[in-house]
């Protein structure tokens, strides 16, 4: 009962604010005379969410796959590069300037190139998401692997522990919370990348739906697509938070 109270105290302000904004939006759309194609009312957005004119499930499916693919690629490549950087000073010297350069590129600007190289499809959009989201994983992995107390490393040397063992038993678990916090950023970056990819080159997906509404002036469909995108993004973000809770509960505050 007290837990329920605490929960309601935490979330009630958010819910109330959300409802107030929703009501204000509906009132503005109904009474201010703003045209429907500029600002659709919440009710017409709600209707568009379920309307048969767009086959949402197909677009949702495509975009979700792109986002998951982008996320997994960014996580895999990011962790691998981070490990390489922390493992060998030589690799670090070779890779870091290059990675910093790649990161300073406006990655969205590369999307048209992806179209030329790979054409339409799910994969280039995954790649766009991965490109936007991998960098924080590299950095956090490398930092997490290096932030080990010098005394702890001395302890490893006293027992003549091989380098890989120090990695497996000490450095990698130590890096886990760092990696997981980077993955929260990657989760949102993967969404951005997938949508940008669809804007540039796609015939399916929620980003594609949004682009098509430009010509049809069907703004309520664009809003509905936004809602679907944010639901996918929230679910992915929630999954990472859950993963952090399961894999590194010791890194959280004392509860």
């Amino acid at each position: 009962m007290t837990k329920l109270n605490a929960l309601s105290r935490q979330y009630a302000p958010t819910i109330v604010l959300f409802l107030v904004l929703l009501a204000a939006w509906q009132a503005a759309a109904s009474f201010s005379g703003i045209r429907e194609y500029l600002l659709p009312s919440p009710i017409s957005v709600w209707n568009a969410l379920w309307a048969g004119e767009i086959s949402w499930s197909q677009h949702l499916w495509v975009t979700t796959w792109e986002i998951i693919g982008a996320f997994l690629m960014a996580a895999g490549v990011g962790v691998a590069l981070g490990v390489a950087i922390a493992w060998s000073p030589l690799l670090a010297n070779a890779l870091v300037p290059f990675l910093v350069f790649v990161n300073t590129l406006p990655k969205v600007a590369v999307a048209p190139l992806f179209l030329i190289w790979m054409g339409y499809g799910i994969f280039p959009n995954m790649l766009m998401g991965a490109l936007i989201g991998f960098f924080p994983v590299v950095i956090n992995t490398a930092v997490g692997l290096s932030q080990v107390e010098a005394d702890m490393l001395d302890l490893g040397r006293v027992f003549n522990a091989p380098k890989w063992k120090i990695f497996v038993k000490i450095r990698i678990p130590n890096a886990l919370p760092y990696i997981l916090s980077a993955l929260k950023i990657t989760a949102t970056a993967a969404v951005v990348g997938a949508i940008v990819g669809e804007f540039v080159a796609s015939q399916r997906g929620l980003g594609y739906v949004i682009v098509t509404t430009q010509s049809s002036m069907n703004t309520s469909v664009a809003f509905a697509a936004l809602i679907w995108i944010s639901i996918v993004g929230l679910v992915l973000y929630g999954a990472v938070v859950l993963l952090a809770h399961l894999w590194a509960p010791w890194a959280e505050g004392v509860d």
Partner: protein
Amino acid sequence: MTRTLIDLDRVGMTYQAASGPVEALAGISLDVGAGEFVSLVGPSGCGKSTLLRIIAGLRPATQGTVTVAGRKVDRPIDDIGMVFQQPILLKWRSILDNVLLPAELAGKDAGRLKSRAHTLLDMAGLAGFGDRLPRELSGGMQQRASLCRALLLDPPLLLMDEPFGALDAMTRDDMALELLRIWGERDLGQEARKTVLFVTHSIAEAVFLSDRVVVMSPRPGRVAADLRIDLPRPRTVEMRASEAFGRLSLDIFRSLTGRSAGTTT
């Protein structure tokens, strides 16, 4: 006369800093017998922690030779237990698994050492805490767990670098008593006991624990005095108030500050 375990012969250490070479240690010659409890006291920056790491083979000395158990030290030596100022337990491992870490790092079968780990935890007053995470324990308890970890592989030599320095004064005094109990001053003869080299800032702690107190001078660290602590064992809390304890503390204080008897500031 007991057999010599550690033999330092004119050990010096000079390292390169941005401003030029810094001489941290100079001409340290010291013998430590097996089973002896020796404290190193000295001002901050005198190189006592560095000396401990040189003996462990973790840092190379730039002059002189270090011999431990008859072998010249030129790389990290196993067969030692180390305790640092911080417990440095792995946050994600239970206390028991932290105590078992040396076995895993040294490539020994941790499963077979489990019962020894439990025995050590019981002895250190941590019975029932084996499956807790480090953050669930107080600082003093964590430090006791790190002492158990150092003792897991039953090393003949224990190197302790200000192990109680981060604890509050009361916990610190308790820990000193605990350490002597675990060291076995009551039950073991000197030859059977572990050799302990104990770095501390506290004169009282050094006198209370040790057979010998080696006083080091400010940088470059040299041996300024080597005093035998002839208080009987087992040591008791009451001894802290004895005349002998006070006299020894004063001797160490004078060696540390370089003041002769009777002088005041």
